[in-house]
C-alpha cells in the first residue's frame, strides 16, 4: 500500500498513486523510445535523418549536449572533494545522479549511433590509438564506471539498505575513497569532454571545426572541457529548481544555487575568454588559410550567423555577466534564466560543431544541405530524458539526495 518506509528519514513524498501515474507517463515516453530503438536496430539508420552528408545527427548532438550538461558531476566533485568547497555538499548528490544519468544515457544513445552495434566491442579489441573516438570510448567507459561507484554510496544510504551492517560499512568506505574517485572522475571526464571536442578539432579536413593544437590536443579539446564546466553546474542547479517546482518542496538553499551560479559564471567567463580567442584564431587563421571567408561558412537559417552570435553573446557573454555580478546572480529568475542561457549556449555549440561542420561544403563546388532529424531520432532522445526523469524520481523518492531538504521543509 505504501512505500513510506523506504523514504529518506524526515521527508515527505507524494502518494504512491500519484507517483505511479507520473512513472506511467515517464514509461510511456520510454516505451516510445525503446520502440524507436527497435526500429533503428531492425531497419538501420536509414530511418533517421542522417545521410552521407550528415554522418552525425541528433544522436551525437544529444550526446554531446547531455554529457556537457552532466559535467556538473565531475566538476562539483572536484570542487567539493578536492578543493573543499563545503557549500557544494548540499547538491553534490544531485550532481552525481545527473552525471550518472547523462553518461549512461549517452551510452545508451551510442548503441543506436553505430551502424553495427553488435561489433561495437571492436572498439575495445582493436583500438586505434590515434582516434579521438577511441579516447572517447575508453574514457566514457571508465568514467561510467566511476560514476557508478560514486552513485553506489548514495544508493546504499537508502534507509532500508543502510540498516544492513555490511552495506553500511561499505557505504562509509565508499565515502572515504570519494576524493580519489572525484579526482579520477574529474580527470577522466576532462579527457572525455575534451576528446569529444577533439573529435571535431582533429578534422583538419573540415575548416569549420578544425583547430590546431596544444601537444596532441586541438583547442576544441579544452574548449569543450571549459564549456561543459561552464554549463554543467548551472544545469545541475536548474534540475534542482525544476524538482522543487514539481514537488513543491524546497530542496536546496538558494545560496547553494547562487554558489553554483557563481561557479558557472566564473567558468563561463573563462570559457568565453578562450572561446573568443579561439573564434578569432579560427576567423583570422584557419579560415583564410583554407581560402574561406567568414560568410562562406554560414548558410541560411539552419546554419546562420545568428547561431554564432547567440552562442557567443546571448548565451555566452550575457549570462556570464549575469552570473558574475552578485546582484543579478542573487535574483532567482535572473539566475535561472542565465543558467538556462548558458545551457542553451552549450547546446548550440554542440549543434554547430556537429551539424554545421558537416553541412559546410568544403569543396567549392559542393552545396549545403540541411539536417532534419526524424521521429526515430527524437524518440530515443526524449526517452533518455524520460529515463533521466525516472532515475531522478526514484532517487529523490527513496534516497537521501538533498541533505538540506529536511531542514528547509519543516
Amino acid at each position, binding site marked *: 500500500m505504501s512505500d513510506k518506509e523506504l523514504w529518506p528519514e524526515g521527508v515527505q513524498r507524494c502518494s504512491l498513486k500519484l507517483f505511479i501515474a507520473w512513472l506511467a507517463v515517464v514509461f510511456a515516453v520510454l516505451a516510445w523510445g525503446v520502440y524507436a530503438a527497435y526500429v533503428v536496430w531492425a531497419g538501420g539508420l536509414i530511418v533517421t535523418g542522417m545521410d552521407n552528408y550528415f554522418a552525425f545527427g541528433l544522436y551525437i548532438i544529444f550526446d554531446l549536449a547531455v554529457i556537457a550538461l552532466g559535467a556538473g558531476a565531475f566538476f562539483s566533485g572536484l570542487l567539493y572533494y578536492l578543493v573543499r568547497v563545503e557549500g557544494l555538499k548540499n547538491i553534490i548528490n544531485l550532481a552525481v545522479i545527473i552525471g550518472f544519468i547523462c553518461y549512461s544515457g549517452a551510452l545508451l544513445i551510442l548503441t543506436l549511433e553505430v551502424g*553495427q552495434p*553488435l*561489433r561495437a*566491442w*571492436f572498439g575495445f579489441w582493436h583500438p586505434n590509438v590515434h582516434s579521438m573516438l577511441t579516447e572517447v570510448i575508453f574514457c566514457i567507459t571508465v568514467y561510467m564506471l566511476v560514476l557508478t561507484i560514486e552513485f553506489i554510496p548514495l544508493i546504499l544510504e537508502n534507509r532500508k539498505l543502510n540498516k544492513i551492517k555490511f552495506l553500511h560499512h561499505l557505504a562509509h568506505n565508499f565515502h572515504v575513497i570519494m576524493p580519489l574517485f572525484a579526482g579520477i572522475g574529474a580527470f577522466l571526464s576532462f579527457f572525455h569532454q575534451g576528446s569529444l571536442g577533439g573529435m571535431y578539432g582533429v578534422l583538419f579536413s573540415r575548416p569549420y571545426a578544425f583547430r590546431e593544437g596544444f601537444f596532441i590536443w586541438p583547442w576544441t579539446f579544452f574548449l569543450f572541457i571549459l564549456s561543459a564546466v561552464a554549463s554543467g553546474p548551472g544545469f545541475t542547479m536548474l534540475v534542482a529548481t525544476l524538482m522543487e517546482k514539481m514537488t513543491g518542496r524546497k530542496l536546496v538553499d538558494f545560496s547553494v544555487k547562487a554558489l553554483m551560479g557563481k561557479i558557472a559564471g566564473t567558468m563561463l567567463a573563462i570559457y568565453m575568454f578562450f572561446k573568443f580567442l579561439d573564434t578569432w584564431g579560427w576567423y583570422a587563421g584557419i579560415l583564410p588559410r583554407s581560402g574561406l571567408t567568414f560568410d562562406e561558412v554560414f548558410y541560411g537559417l539552419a546554419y546562420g550567423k545568428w547561431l554564432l552570435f547567440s552562442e557567443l553573446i546571448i548565451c555566452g557573454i550575457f549570462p556570464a555577466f549575469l552570473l558574475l555580478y552578485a546582484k543579478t546572480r542573487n535574483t532567482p529568475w535572473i539566475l535561472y534564466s542565465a543558467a538556462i542561457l548558458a545551457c542553451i549556449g552549450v547546446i548550440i555549440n554542440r549543434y554547430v560543431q556537429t551539424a554545421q561542420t558537416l553541412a559546410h561544403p568544403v569543396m567549392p563546388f559542393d552545396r549545403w544541405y540541411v539536417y532534419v532529424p526524424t521521429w526515430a531520432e527524437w524518440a530515443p532522445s526524449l526517452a533518455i530524458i524520460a529515463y533521466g526523469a525516472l532515475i531522478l524520481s526514484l532517487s529523490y523518492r527513496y534516497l537521501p539526495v538533498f541533505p538540506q531538504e529536511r531542514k528547509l521543509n519543516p
Partner: protein
Amino acid sequence: MALNRRSFLTFAAGGVAGTLFTPVIWKSIDDTAIWTQNWPWIPRLEYGPRAYAATTCKLCPAGCGLNIRTAGGRPVVAEGRPDHPLSQGGICPLGAAAVQLLYSPARIKSPMQKQEDGTHQPISWEQAEALLQEKLSAQTGRRNSVACISGDENGTINELFSAFLGKLGSQAFFLMPGESLAASRVMKQGSIGFDIENADLVVAFGADLLDSWGTIVRNKKAYGASRRIGENPSAEYVYVGPMQNNTGSGADQWISVAPEQEGILALGVAYHLLQSGLMANQAHDFSAYRNHVMSRYTPEYVQRMTGIAPETVASLAEKLRRADRPLVIPGSSISQGGGVFSFAAALSLNFLLNNLDSPGGVFVLPEMPQAVADAEERSLIRSRDLVTYLQEIAAGRAEKPAVYLVYEANPVFTMPQANTLATAMQGSYLVSFSTFYDETAAQADLLLPTPYFLERFDDVQTPHGAGFASYSLTRPVIQPVFDTKPTGDVLLGVAEKMGFDLGFASFDKVLEAKVANLTELEGFFTDKVQPWEVRAGASVSSASGNLWRSISRGSVWASTQVPYDSEVLLGTRILTQAAPPETDDWTFPVRLVAMDSRAYGSRHIAIPPFLLPLLGEQEMQGNTFYVWMNSVTAKNYGLAAQELVKLTGPTGEITARVRIFEGVGPNMVAAPLGFGHTAWDQFSRGKGENVYNVLTVRYEPGTDLPVWADSRVRIAKA
C-alpha cells in the same frame, strides 16, 4: 548442500564465474560479430575461373564491342573491347550495365498473352507461335494489313522481317525513326561515314557526338585520342547546338542555336567560305548553291534567325578554312526528328571544304550484301516514315493494320506525341518481340520475348555515324536465363508453318549467310589495325579464311572500301525549299530542347538499375524531374529554381521542376528524354514524365518529312 535461495544464488554466481573461464561468452560475442559480417540474407559470392566473352552491344544503335567478364561461366561485368573499332576498350554507361540487365525485373520471362483484365499470362511457345500464325494467316494477302516496327536499325533481322512481310503482302515495315531518315533524303545509296579520328577540326551541327549521336563510344574515343592529357590536342571540337550538353561542355567551343536552326548557321558559315573563295566545283549545283547562300544567308540574316553574332560565324568559317582536315557533322540534337535542311546544310560544308573521301572527312559507306533473298533493300526501308504513317492512321487518313509486329522497339512510349500516336495502335493485334516489358509490351496482346543480346547470336552492321563499314556479332555468353526464343527463329518457324520459304532453317544460318556475303566487299579484321588507320594510310591484310568462324568467335570485320561513285550534290534544291519558318510562335513561345543521353538508357531501353546513380540532383527530386533553362529565361516567365513548372505543347503537357542552368540557350527549355515510364520496373517506373508527349511534329516544307526536334512549348508555374 541445502537448496535454498542463497545456495541457488551462490550456485548461479559460481556458474557465471565458471562461464567466464570458458569460451561460452567470449566465443558467443566473437561469433556474433562474425555473424554480422555474413548476414544470411545478403547474397554470397560465387567463385570460379575468370574468362572473357567478346560480343557486341545491342542496347543502342552504336554497336560497341563488349568483353563480358565471366566468373565460373557466369557473366558478371561488361567491359569494352580494345580490338573493336566502335568501342576501343571503352563503353558508355548503358553498356557498362549490360550484364545486370540480364536479370532486370523488367524482363519478360516467357511468352505471354494478354488477359481481359489487362494482365499478361504465361503461355507455352507452342501456344504462342500458334497464336501468331493464326493472327498472321488471317491477314495473308491483305495489303499492308500487317505492319512491323523494328527497333534494331542495323541488324539482319530486318531482312527477315521485310521478307516475311513481303510474303504476307505487306510493305509496312518500318524502322523506329532516327537520323538515317533525314540522311536517306540526301544519300540515296549507302550511308555517310565521318572519319572523326583523322580530322583536326570537328564541327558538329546539332549532332550530340559525345552522348547520343551515332557511334557514341567511338566518338568519345576519337575525342579523347585527340586531346590526350598532357599533350597538345590534335583536333579541335566545336559544337553547334541548343544547349551545353555533354558534347557542348566537352567541345572547345559551344555555339548555341535553337534546335533545327543549325542549318541556318551552317549556311552562314558557307557564306563566309564562299566569300573567301572556296568552291565545290565537282558539285553539279555549286553555282545555284553559291547564289542561294550568298543572297540569302548574309550575316545579318543569320544573326536575326539564330542570334549568333556575325563575328562568331566568320570566326567559325575561318577555323574551318584554316584547318587541314576539317569535318562537319550534321545531325539532330536528339538523333531523331531532325529535318533534311539542317542535315544537308551542314553536310554541304564538307563539300565546300573538299573533304569527301579524304582522311578526316566524309565517306560514303557501302551497304552490307543482303542475306535474305526476298528482303527489301535497306535504303528503301530507311526512307520509310513511321511517324507520318502513324499520324495518318491516328487521324483516320490511313487504314489501321490488323496486326502490329513490334521488334525491340517501344513506339508506344518513344514516338513524338507519343500519347497521340499510341492511339494508332489501339485496336490492332499487337505482338511484341521484346526482351523487356516496356510500354508497348504492356499494351501488346501477345508477348514473344526474344533473348537478351547476351543470350543469342545477332549482328550489328555499320551503325549510323560510323566512319567505316563494320560488321560484328552479338554472341551468347550464357544460355537464355528465361523461357525466351530468338525472334528470327520464331519468324522462320512461323513462316515455315505458313508455307513461306525464307530460305533458312534458323536465324543463325541467316547470319552465316550474311557473313559469307561479306566477301563481296574488301574487308579486314580489326584486331591489328583500325579502319581510320587504314584511311590514314596504314596497310592491312584482307580478311580471309572462314569468316564465320572468325566473326562468330568475336572478330570484327571492317571495310574502308568506297563502294559507289560519288555523285555530289550540295542539295541546293532542298536547301531552298526546306528552310525552317521564320515566324515566331506566341502560343508556344519557348523552344523545347529535348535531351538524349546514354546515362538514362536509350530510346529502347529504360534507365537500368545500375544507371540510377547517374541521376543526380540535376535530374530528379523525389519523383519529379527537372527541366533546365537559363536564369534570364526563367525570369522572363516568372520562374525560380526548384519551382514546379508545366510545359504545354500542342498535344500534351508535362510537369517538372525548374533547374537554372546557364548552359541552355535563350528562350529555350531543356527536358531529358527517357523519363516517365509506366511499364518496366520500379527502377525506372514513375520517375519524371515522358517528354515525348510534348514533342510536336511539324512537316518540313519541300521534303514533307516529320520534324519534331524543334518542338515548342508554353511554360508556366504549376
